């Protein structure tokens, strides 16, 4: 017994000593590798989100201390971020050394050959390769930043899926449950089918009205002045009905069913009319809501259930300074039509959008080596857990098992477990090199369907025709 104790003690000691040695080594390695670049300044552009704010405020400072390389961050709004990064890369100006790549724009960037192949670049600069940075440590989300050969073009920095949030305090209230069952003839529960979802929405809207509460049945990300509405339809509602890749057939280059597309097909029409049919049960701000307002509405307690991007789940569930529903947030997989989950499990579809972003290095950068060090720094395992806790994002498989995350997980009703286990059911954006272009074409039709100016069928058949016209103009169509 005593021997064993000594052994354990010894082992612990050795381990500890080793660890401190590793830490010291790590410091030396960074300083040494960065020596030729100390004093340079690398600049990046990013949207102002919690994960990227953590990078700007915490990680950048640590990196500068270790390496002497300064990191400048330009945070800006969503539209601005794209226009500035694209201008820079297209004109080959070299303003940015790293750019934020939202997952859905990566294929456009790759098609234009804007980005440095990070796998290749690291292999060519072995002296800059950091031991604790390993591409295989990333979750499957990193696959959406790879080319056909499996080479990585962006270091994932945030990742999340759009989940179904519901108010536990409402769904678990006995009086409400009784009232629901009396009216609908089956017990109240978080929705698993679209019919049930609509019943819930209708019920809670009526309930809110009868109790003179500011409560509605569902969120709808239905802004008529912003692409957010098109995104919710094409990336969340559509796939859960079985409408994939925006209904665009890449082989024929068409969105019309006559040519192999599906944007004007029955599934799409069903999805759009179902979704716009939810508007009467959504709070009045729904038609002005982008993703951030949807999250805010839910956090304000104005909706009983809804589709909310996962990056917001953590603060809605835990941050009392911003959310009125802390502790009452339930998290589930979004509802799907029959057969959709099965298809997704077989890899023949997906149930929603695996969203997120990465940092990549434009070819126009003049400090590629220093930037490579920086990207490895934020991509290494040891910084992931705290970053995940601060920004509700997970990009490393190992991070799921970290105690910090396990603790968070219980507070957000198992969101991280869901992300880990069911994440593969979601998928990144379709591999379009014309992402923003075609989205802009579809936008007005979705907006007019929301306004009721067009029926779902009219909106989608006109949208599909307009998409085809744009595709052929861009040279991707027929």
């Amino acid at each position, binding site marked *: 017994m005593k021997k064993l104790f000594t052994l354990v003690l010894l082992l612990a000691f050795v381990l500890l000593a080793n660890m401190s040695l590793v830490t010291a080594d790590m410091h030396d390695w960074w300083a040494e590798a960065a020596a030729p670049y100390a004093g340079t300044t690398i600049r990046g552009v990013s949207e102002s989100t919690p994960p990227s704010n953590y990078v700007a405020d915490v990680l950048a400072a640590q990196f500068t201390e270790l390496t002497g390389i300064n990191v400048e961050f330009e945070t800006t709004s969503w539209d601005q971020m*794209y226009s500035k990064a694209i201008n820079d890369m297209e004109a080959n100006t070299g303003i940015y050394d790293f750019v934020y790549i939202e997952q859905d724009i990566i294929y456009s960037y790759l098609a234009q050959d804007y980005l440095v192949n990070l796998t290749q670049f690291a292999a060519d600069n072995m002296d800059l390769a950091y031991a604790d940075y390993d591409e295989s440590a990333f979750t499957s989300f990193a696959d959406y930043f790879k080319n056909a050969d499996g080479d990585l073009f962006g270091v994932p920095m945030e990742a999340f899926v759009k989940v179904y949030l519901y108010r536990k305090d409402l769904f678990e209230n006995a009086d409400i449950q009784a009232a629901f069952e009396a009216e609908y003839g089956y017990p109240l529960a978080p929705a698993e089918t679209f019919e049930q979802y609509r019943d819930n929405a209708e019920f809670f809207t009526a309930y809110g009205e009868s109790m003179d509460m500011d409560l509605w049945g569902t969120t709808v990300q239905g802004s008529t*002045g912003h692409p957010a509405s098109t995104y919710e339809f094409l990336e969340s509602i559509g796939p859960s009905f079985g409408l994939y890749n925006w209904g665009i057939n890449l082989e024929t280059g068409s969105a019309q069913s006559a040519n192999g597309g599906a944007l004007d097909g029955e599934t799409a029409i069903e999805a759009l009319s179902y979704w716009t049919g939810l508007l009467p049960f959504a709070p009045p701000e729904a038609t002005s809501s982008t993703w951030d307002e949807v999250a805010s509405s839910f956090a304000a307690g104005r909706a009983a259930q809804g589709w909310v991007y996962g990056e917001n789940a953590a603060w809605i569930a835990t941050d009392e300074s911003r959310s009125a529903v802390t502790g009452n947030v339930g998290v589930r997989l979004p509802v799907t039509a029959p057969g959709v989950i099965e298809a997704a499990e077989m890899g023949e579809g997906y149930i929603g959008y695996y969203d997120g972003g990465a940092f990549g290095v434009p070819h126009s950068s003049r400090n590629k080596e220093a930037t490579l060090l920086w990207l490895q720094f934020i991509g290494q395992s040891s910084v992931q857990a705290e970053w995940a806790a601060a920004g509700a994002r997970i990009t490393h498989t190992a991070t799921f098992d970290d105690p910090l995350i396990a603790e968070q997980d219980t507070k957000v009703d198992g969101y991280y477990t869901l992300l880990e286990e069911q994440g593969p059911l979601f998928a990144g954006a379709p591999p379009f090199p014309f992402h923003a272009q075609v989205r802009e074409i579809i936008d007005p039709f979705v907006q007019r369907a929301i306004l009721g100016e067009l029926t779902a069928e009219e909106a989608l058949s006109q949208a599909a025709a307009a998409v085809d016209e744009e595709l052929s103009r861009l040279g991707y169509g027929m």
Partner: protein
Amino acid sequence: MRDSRTGWLLLSPTLIILLVFGFAPFLYVLFVGFNQWNIFSADDGLVFNGLDNFRRLVFDDDFLHSVGLTMRFAIFAIGSQIVLGFVLAQMLTRNFPGKSLFRVIHTLPLMVAPIAVGAIWRLLVIPGFGPAPFFLDRWFDLTYQIGTYPDQALWTSVIMDVWHWTPFVTLTMLAGLTAIPKEPVEQAKVDGANRFQVFWYVTLPFLRPVLLTTVFIRIMDAIRTVDEVWMLAGGGPGTRFTGIYIWRVVFPRTDYGYGSSISIITLYLTIVLCWLLFIAISGRRKGEVE
């Protein structure tokens, strides 16, 4: 007259700056307007396509619709500003205690950055946290949702613009009114003209140059409005004005060729409109001199 060389010398810094930062970009836009150019197309170079962009534009419902909306916006907004600004300026020509305080407060909106104006108005009118829909519903039982009703979005932009720019009109009108000599007005009154006649036959002719100039400046600015409306309603149905439409075509769609040709046409229409006004103003001036 004096040596024109000195005149050109005095004018040259202005000309140089405007040629470099105004005219050169214009030439570039003009050039691009005759090309097919989208950096995210399969073949991403510039391809000369003659008048194709302009042909496409004539049949582009979205563009035509945006021009119609912009015109409605400009006419309603500027019309209200002129009437309101004139009435207020008229009231400011007389003295009364507290006048300067009222005038300062009235000028404040002019000082708020357009993007902040858009943000404030969004906060006022978005259901959920905006007081406007809340109180309209409670007191008058009116449903006010700018996201759902395009007309409401348009009217909200008009009212926002009136709020923002009426002070400017009031100030120019006030300046114009104070500069009107007293004698003709007194004379007309002695001759037995009523108030309307004094206004119509004496005040208005004197005020005409200021009036037209103000309208001119407001038209120029109203047609290119982007920031405020963008923040307010994002340029959805009802507020997709030409300035915003161009922005969407040029930026998210990166259709530089087509966006440039729309810009050229818009600029051309603005110039024609303003040229007519300009002739009206300078015609009047020449008449005075001779």
